[in-house]
């Protein structure tokens, strides 16, 4: 540190008169384990890609540090009819290239995001019409009432119509088109930062946009931001320790102590919205990967409960996650569901589990394969190894098949669903229970997309009914009641074995202050360098 100071002093002395203004220069360097796939805001609905783009582009709404919805490009909105939402757009907003923002840009973005090649079509699910009332008023008409319409719009970024058309970027990036889309490496948003240069996977440089409409309330003091992806965990940690970068994430669990013990670095931890859980094939009449033939033991709730009770999540929290997880009784983060306190995990009890197995007709247990990713979630493979050991205590011999995510997802997801027992994680992108109920727990149905990620085929008619009620119920209290009933059904049937919420771990230099949002989005607007 002293050396750097000396060097800085020397540099300042050399620069002399020229250096006067550069004393205020605040360059912020940070790293993530990968890069955003594209700058095209509709090319991939993935946390990091959207997170980086979110510094450049803005949506009609935005999420504040506590994940509460606040106005952004839309100043206000009202529900004029149950199926018609009216948005008043902010006036005087300019894109980075100086173009005005108005209703045409919203209409254009609404059209573009629903075109083929867009990965964010779901942002406008249920919207049948987008109408321009005047230059700064837009109506969104939905088929049925959609109370959660704007929940995901924090990451539906508005693009400039004129710019997109002038550069041939009217359509979202299509990998099968055989050529590059202009918006892949160029961006023109309304947000607080502009792209100065970008080399995919190497380096991206951002500078503040002086004309940002909310510049008066800006929270950052940066003059330049340099982002570098660093894939290797130990290199990323080393770069932070040596001060070459000011911030990085994720921090590997094994390096937490090191960063915490260094006086110049800190670890910021917080609960993430992602729930990690185990799923069981309850659909097939015979499991694909098990020693039990002719029947499916998971169809018996006693077997599912035995598995549930055999797993001691607190032990996993202590030994595998080193405290960086919150055991969970629900399939959704407690931050996102009002009555989450009412749900408690079943007490781990190996003896009872063994009895349940015996009752179900498996006194000597059986053999089964557990599918597990090894590079997707925090310590995913280690969690599975712990599960294997815990199930061994009740006589179930688990063969662990841990694979990289590319192979893992190809195997366990639909259409193959080639698994009997698997570990998966889920973050509801709309911050709402319906997303979890529909995608993870609902009865799989190709047509409607229900149960798309319900790889074990859990199915309950009442649950599906409640899911539909939750979708269109506008009364919040009623809605929460439906959700509560649904989760109770799932809990009683032991349809899934929720394990924990994994924790976020960001590392930073001590002179940096920033805001950590539970959805793992990193907003440069809240970064201060002292």
């Amino acid at each position, binding site marked *: 540190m002293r*050396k750097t100071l000396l060097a800085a002093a020397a540099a300042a002395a050399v620069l002399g008169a020229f250096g006067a203004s550069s004393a205020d220069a605040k360059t912020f360097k940070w790293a993530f384990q*990968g890069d955003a*796939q*594209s700058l*095209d805001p509709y*090319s*991939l*609905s*993935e946390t990091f890609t959207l997170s980086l783009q979110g510094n450049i582009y803005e949506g009609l709404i935005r999420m504040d540090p506590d994940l509460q919805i606040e106005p952004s490009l839309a100043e206000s909105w009202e529900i004029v009819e149950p199926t018609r939402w009216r948005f008043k757009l902010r006036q005087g907003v300019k894109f980075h290239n100086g173009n005005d923002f108005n209703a045409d840009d919203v209409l254009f973005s609404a059209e573009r995001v629903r075109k083929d090649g867009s*990965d*964010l*079509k*779901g942002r406008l699910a249920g919207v049948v019409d987008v109408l321009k009332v005047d230059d700064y008023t837009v109506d969104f008409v939905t088929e049925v009432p959609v109370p959660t319409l704007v929940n995901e719009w924090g990451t539906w970024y508005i693009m400039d119509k004129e710019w997109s058309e002038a550069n041939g970027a009217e359509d979202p*990036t299509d*990998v*099968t*088109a*055989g*050529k*590059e*889309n202009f918006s*892949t*490496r160029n961006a023109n948003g309304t947000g607080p930062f502009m792209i100065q240069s970008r*080399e*995919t*996977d*190497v*380096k991206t440089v951002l500078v503040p946009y002086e004309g940002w409409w909310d510049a008066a309330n800006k929270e950052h003091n940066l003059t330049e931001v340099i982002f*570098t*992806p*660093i*894939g*290797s965990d*130990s*290199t990323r940690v*080393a*770069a932070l*320790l*040596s*001060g*070459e970068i000011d911030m990085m994430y994720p921090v590997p669990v094994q390096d937490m102590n090191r960063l915490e013990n260094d006086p110049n670095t800190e670890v910021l931890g917080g609960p993430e919205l992602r729930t990690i859980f185990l799923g069981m094939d309850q659909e097939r009449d015979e499991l694909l990967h098990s020693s039990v033939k002719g029947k499916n033991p998971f169809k018996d709730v006693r077997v599912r409960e035995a598995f549930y009770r055999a797993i001691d999540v607190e032990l996993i929290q202590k030994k595998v996650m080193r405290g960086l997880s919150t055991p969970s009784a629900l399939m959704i983060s407690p931050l996102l569901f009002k009555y989450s306190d009412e749900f408690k995990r079943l007490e781990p009890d190996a003896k009872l589990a063994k009895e349940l197995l015996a009752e179900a007709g498996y006194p000597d247990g059986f053999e089964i394969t557990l599918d597990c990713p090894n*590079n997707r979630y925090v310590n995913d493979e280690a969690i599975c190894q712990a599960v294997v050991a815990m199930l061994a205590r009740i006589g179930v011999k688990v063969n662990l098949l841990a694979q*990289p*995510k*590319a*192979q*893992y*997802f*190809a195997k366990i*997801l*639909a*259409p193959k669903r080639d698994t009997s027992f698997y570990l998966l994680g*889920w973050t509801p*992108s709309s911050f709402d229970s319906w997303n979890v109920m529909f*995608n993870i727990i609902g009865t799989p149905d*190709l047509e409607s*997309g229900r149960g*798309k*990620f319900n790889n074990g085929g859990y199915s309950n008619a009442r649950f599906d009914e409640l899911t539909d009620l939750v979708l269109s119920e506008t009364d919040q209290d009623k809605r929460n009641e439906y959700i509560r009933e649904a989760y109770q059904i799932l809990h009683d049937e032991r349809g899934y074995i929720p394990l924990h919420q994994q924790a976020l771990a960001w590392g930073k230099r001590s002179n940096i202050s920033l805001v950590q949002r539970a959805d793992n989005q990193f907003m440069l607007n809240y970064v201060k360098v002292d």
Partner: protein
Amino acid sequence: MVAFILRRLIQSLFVMFFVALVSFSMFRFVGDPVNQMVGIETSIAEREALRERLGLNDPFMVQFGRYIGKAATGEFGISYQHKRPVAEMLVERMPATLELALVSAVFSLLLGVPMGVYAGLNRDGFISKVLLSVSLVGISLPTFLIGILLIFFFSVQLNLLPSFGRGGLIDIGLWKTGLLTIDGWKSLIMPSITLGLFQLTLIMRLVRSEMLEVLRTDYIKFARARGLTNRAVHFGHALKNTLVPVITITGLQLGSIIAFAIITETVFQWPGMGQMFLQAVTTVDIPIMAAYLMLIAFFFVVINLIVDLLYYVVDPRLRVDTGKASGHG
């Protein structure tokens, strides 16, 4: 001579064809690219449609034929992940890899040959023994570990060298070089040592054993009998005759340095082709994987060709032989 070179280049096409064939037949086992390309909201039907449009449902031979057909016209496709032309991305990444490979090859030659000569001439000397035992480390430690240890000492503890990336780049046309700035060289030091250590060890051991071999031969004894100086005997006669195997090995190793820079590049976040390849493997980016493997195959062929040509330069006997052979023809 020209015919010889042409023949080799045509052979290289066959090599590349077979590499493409083998790698294509393996891509089916690396996973499903579509799940890596779309977010969680994309429906199963849309995933299936994308798979269809990418031609991933076609039989293997159809996919392969289509790829080769396009590759023959210089069209290597669009990266699934980055949505950019693969050829362009490889060209962008190539300077980083080639500079790293060359610097580490030069490093291992410049140090390895003198060390080997020394160890050969003073086979029982203390320093030779030290060199030999230290070189064991170079052979037995895995690359990534050497890299991490270097980072730990020189970046974290001493704060002397950058732990990742290529600093101080200067554009010369299409080529971005780090060889013209101090920053660039500073970033090169640790990666090239990491990458070159194994080669250094190999060359040193090879030169040493070759020297020991040659020093025993009659013409060395004769040279000494003629009263030549030690210097002339060691470097003029002995060293020159050890060079043929050294050139072969160095040449072949240069190919592997380029190909196996993957690990070094990943450890140091070196923005080269190897790092891009490794990323492509984790995301099943087939166009990048295929193009990279074919390019590496091409490098190997070209390097072999250069090695063969160098033999002529170093070994006069070869020149005499071909002269005779062509004379007969």
